[in-house]
């Protein structure tokens, strides 16, 4: 039993060490390598534009459900018009960036790991290296930068559509008075809430791309190796996002309190 635990701990430490080396290579590449704008734009399109449908649907329905549930509770204490303020702050601080990141981890993290993993097992990454191209420069850096750019934008879209759909449900289905609903939302949602959402989404973008690339670059041989890398990329990204979110909430809450 002890041996098994030791083995598991060693494995986790080894993986963390390898990811740190990859992060070091990325930093080195960012300092020395000139970005190929065509590759970066393609990745922004691939990660950002193509993820919009899934992110918007998630944002819209999360906003509507959150709005309805909040209303059901607040209605009991005659606080109907505070519904959208709760929805707005929740979406900006937590649900917008986290749900967006989880959806993108499923769609993009898996796709990055599968694409790079397939390139590895078919020797395309070795071919890149023989063509005097560093795999981190060509495969990892554009994806990392694109994910850092795309995630905050996607999270904002998700938040806006979530608030909009919650407003529609509140006003047209639940019959809440629209002026006070909107006014309370503006009153209790501050710039700092939006900033927290943006910062979180920026960090989650890096997590998704880093873990996806790492799993692809280190995947085992054959179809089984690619399949496992894809699954692990999604699972590890999702868990890392949820754990990081807790600590970010504490740290940013503290910082905002200090400010």
């Amino acid at each position, binding site marked *: 039993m002890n041996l098994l635990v030791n083995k598991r701990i060693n494995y986790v430490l080894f993986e963390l060490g390898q990811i740190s080396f990859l992060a070091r290579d990325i930093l080195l590449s960012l300092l020395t390598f000139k970005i190929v704008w065509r590759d970066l734009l393609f990745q922004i399109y691939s990660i950002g534009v193509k993820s919009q449908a899934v992110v918007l649907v998630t944002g819209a329905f999360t906003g509507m459900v959150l709005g309805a549930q909040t209303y059901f509770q607040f209605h009991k204490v005659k606080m109907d018009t505070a519904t959208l303020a709760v929805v707005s702050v929740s979406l900006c601080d937590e649900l917008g960036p986290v749900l967006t990141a989880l959806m993108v981890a499923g769609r993009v993290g898996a796709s990055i790991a599968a694409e790079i993993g397939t390139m590895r097992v078919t020797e395309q990454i070795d071919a890149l*290296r023989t063509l005097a191209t560093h795999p981190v420069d060509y495969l990892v850096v554009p994806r990392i930068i694109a994910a850092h750019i795309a995630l905050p934008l996607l999270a904002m879209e998700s938040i806006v559509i979530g608030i909009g759909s919650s407003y529609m449900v509140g006003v047209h289905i639940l019959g809440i008075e629209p002026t006070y609903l909107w006014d309370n939302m503006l009153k209790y949602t501050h710039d700092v809430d939006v900033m927290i959402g943006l910062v979180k989404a920026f960090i989650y973008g890096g997590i998704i791309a880093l873990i996806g690339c790492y799993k692809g670059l280190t995947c085992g041989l054959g179809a089984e190796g690619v399949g496992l890398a894809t699954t692990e990329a999604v699972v590890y990204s999702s868990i890392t996002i949820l754990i990081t979110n807790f600590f970010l909430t504490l740290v940013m809450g503290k910082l905002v309190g200090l400010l």
Partner: protein
Amino acid sequence: MIEVRHLQKSFGANKILDDVSFRIENGESVVIIGRSGGGKSVLLKHLVGLLQPDAGEVLVDGENIGPMNERQLLRVRRKFGMVFQGAALFDSMTVAENVAFAFRRHKNLTADEIARRVAAALDMVDLPGTQNIKPAELSGGMRKRVGLARAIIYEPQIVLYDEPTTGLDPIVSDSIDKLIIRVRDHLKVTSIVVTHDMRSARRVGNHVLMLHDKKVYANCTPESLFASQDPIVRQFIDGVADEKEILY
């Protein structure tokens, strides 16, 4: 010039190469033969720095590439072109984009100049007019030719071929052999070919290295190898399996 000194490589507990040493002069055409799993491709990958030795040295033009990191190796790799066993073409790109890959960051070349060089490289491998085709639409032999065009377009000094005729019919294999000879003679490159194909080994090499039992077993001309009466060499050339191998 490539020199390998006392090279050792293991994967886990499995030792693949043990004290391998040899030297390849500029312009030579060397064929590396040996049994499947005998370390031929592993040796080839050491020459271009795709694998790092556990012990020993790999010298390219006098520079030991063993201790170099990935970024330092990029400079050395500009001397090499490599044709992979499965061609390793980038499947998201067209043939032209694959062949022109090495030029994608060369700002001093115009698009017209790159297109002209791609056309010339494809002509050399007898695949003119295939620029806009995706690799998935190509046959095995055509993929290897595109891989060769991609390897030679930037005029490297050394071209490495990892089992270039494996999985191809004898006629296509023959055409690939002729291409290797054409590239060697036209571009004056050093060629290093890993193969199981004895006919190909006899035709394209002016020197043969035979790996056996993790070491260089023979290092000679094709003529003396094929005339050898050594039982291990004969067994490999004639393709005769041991009784033990038939049973298991």
